[in-house]
């Protein structure tokens, strides 16, 4: 019973006109585990998570939540089903205060009828507390999100998703734009969300970020699945090789090796 996956993706296909963004992809996500989706640019990673978060609907295949098939018609429906997403472009409004962004779309209210209003005190207090709980040290919840650094923004977005998403957290390349140190910080938040019992889908094209936190790895290439592995079934080197498409990587290594001998400067 406890072994039942939180989310199961079965043979999901998505086409945009003649482009097959995603063709027959399957994997599972369990509570308290991290499923990594790896692939090069254009592999279909974002398309997959947009299906999971209700932005797109699959043309074929199905999603099972707690073993039951679900249809996620809109981001709202996905949120209501407990699926929270941190998008590559973050879904935060730069000019708005952190606390306003934190509760955007799910604002707490107080009062009645025409006097129903945004409960600002609760929102500000909760934002401060949730960020602190995740170990995020922001200076002032009232400052615009646009003034935060990339890593801080990711962290706020993750804290928001943890606060609302409860069950399944999806992260689209949260570390791709970050330096080594900031990426480490974000990976730590991912681990913390996992330890809280959330199922996490972590999209990345960097195997070095995926391997330390991942429990399962789904490899995509040009919309096709190259395989879906549990952690023990794969070594980091194999993972890197498969991602780059084995032979292609060898070729590349070969090419790069020759270069320094021919170049004079630098």
């Amino acid at each position, binding site marked *: 019973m406890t072994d039942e996956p939180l989310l199961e993706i079965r043979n999901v296909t998505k086409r945009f006109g003649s482009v097959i963004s995603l063709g027959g992809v399957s994997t599972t996500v369990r509570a308290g585990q991290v499923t990594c989706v790896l692939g090069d640019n254009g592999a279909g990673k974002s398309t997959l998570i947009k299906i999971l*978060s209700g*932005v797109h609907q699959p043309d074929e295949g199905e999603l099972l939540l707690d073993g039951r098939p679900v249809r996620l018609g*809109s*981001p*709202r429906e996905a*949120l209501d089903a407990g699926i929270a*997403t941190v*998008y590559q*472009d*973050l*879904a*935060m*409004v*730069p*000019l*708005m205060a952190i606390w*306003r962004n934190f*509760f*955007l*779309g*799910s*604002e707490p*209210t107080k009062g009645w009828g025409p006097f*129903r*209003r*945004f409960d*600002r005190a609760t929102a500000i207090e909760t934002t401060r507390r949730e960020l602190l709980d995740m170990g995020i*040290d922001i*200076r*002032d919840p*009232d*400052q*615009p999100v*646009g*003034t*935060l*650094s990339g890593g801080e923004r990711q962290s706020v977005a993750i804290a928001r998703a943890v606060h609302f998403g409860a069950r399944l957290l999806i992260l689209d390349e949260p570390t791709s734009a970050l330096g080594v140190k900031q990426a480490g910080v974000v990976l730590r938040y991912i681990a913390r969300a996992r330890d809280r019992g959330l199922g996490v889908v972590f999209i990345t094209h960097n195997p070095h970020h995926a391997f330390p936190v991942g429990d399962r790895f789904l490899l995509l290439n040009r919309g096709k699945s190259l395989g879906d592995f549990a952690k023990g079934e794969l070594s980091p080197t194999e993972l890197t090789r498969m991602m780059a498409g084995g032979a292609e990587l060898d070729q590349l290594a070969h090419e790069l090796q020759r270069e320094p001998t021919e170049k004079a400067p630098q």
Partner: protein
Amino acid sequence: MSTGTVTSAGPDERLARVGLLKRVLLKPELGALIGAVLVFGFFAALSDVFRSASGIANWLDPASTLGIMAVAVALLMIGGHFDLSAGVQTGTAAITSGLLTTYYGVNTWAALAISLALVLAIGFVNGYLVVRTGLPSFIITLGTFLMLQGLNLGITKLVTNTVQINNFNRILGYDVLHAVFASEFTIAGASFQIAILWWVIATILGSWLLLRTRFGNWIFATGGDANASRNVGVPVARTTISLFMITSFAAWFVGTTQIVRLTSIQAQAGFGQELIYIVAAVIGGCLLTGGFGSAVGAAVGALIFGMTSQGIVYAGWDADWFKFFLGAMLLLAVLANQYIRRFAELSRR
């Protein structure tokens, strides 16, 4: 914050350095408030009448009806859109009420309800077209603006054979309407238009809506980044359409004020005003790109407009200078806004 906990001293230091300055600068209405004080000081120094009670009543009057519209238009602009048909809708509302009562003998309250329903429908269509097509609201409302301009003139001429509707004071219940829309109250011997009161109420309501309700959060978000908002479940389409309808409601209110006060209405009423509303909102700190601004700022923008337009007369200058002043103020406001935006949005990119 007076704990002895040993944390890094960094964060608090940064808070003191960046936070305070930023917080003050990020008040959208700040520039307008400073501008209003300067403009008042300037004209008050030039003319005693300007700062007398009757002078104040005089410049608050044009500020008031403009201010009601500017607040609604500011909400719409913060939500990321323009309504070029807002001015002409004041005319449409007044002409509809006027024709129905004075030419077709429709009951006053029914006529007012019909004209309200009509402009709300126009607002809905504006919003719906913008949401469905994804085209700039500038173009969509330019279309409705031209259509309404034609209709206002065409229908008025067709029915009355003139370009004016008269005798609105002869309709049933005019007393009540006059009390609500056009009565005056006296302070310090000067009589003030009741529209000033409505303007204050509109500003408080607009500000409350914007800063204290979920809908307000959605307005900022929709104008700031519609896509991001949609992704987190903000009803962007509903918010946008509501904003256009709020603007239309304000147009109905101002149009009704106009016809009740003058007891007649020109078929041309409201033409060209739409740009003045936008100017007031921008002077008040609204960004043309949406997502930033305030209702109080827009009201102060209208105040600056009122003070300048009358102040120039009191100072004994040619009224032609008014447009120059207004344009200069607009330019200043836009430059200041641009700076603030860069400060808020780009300082950490």
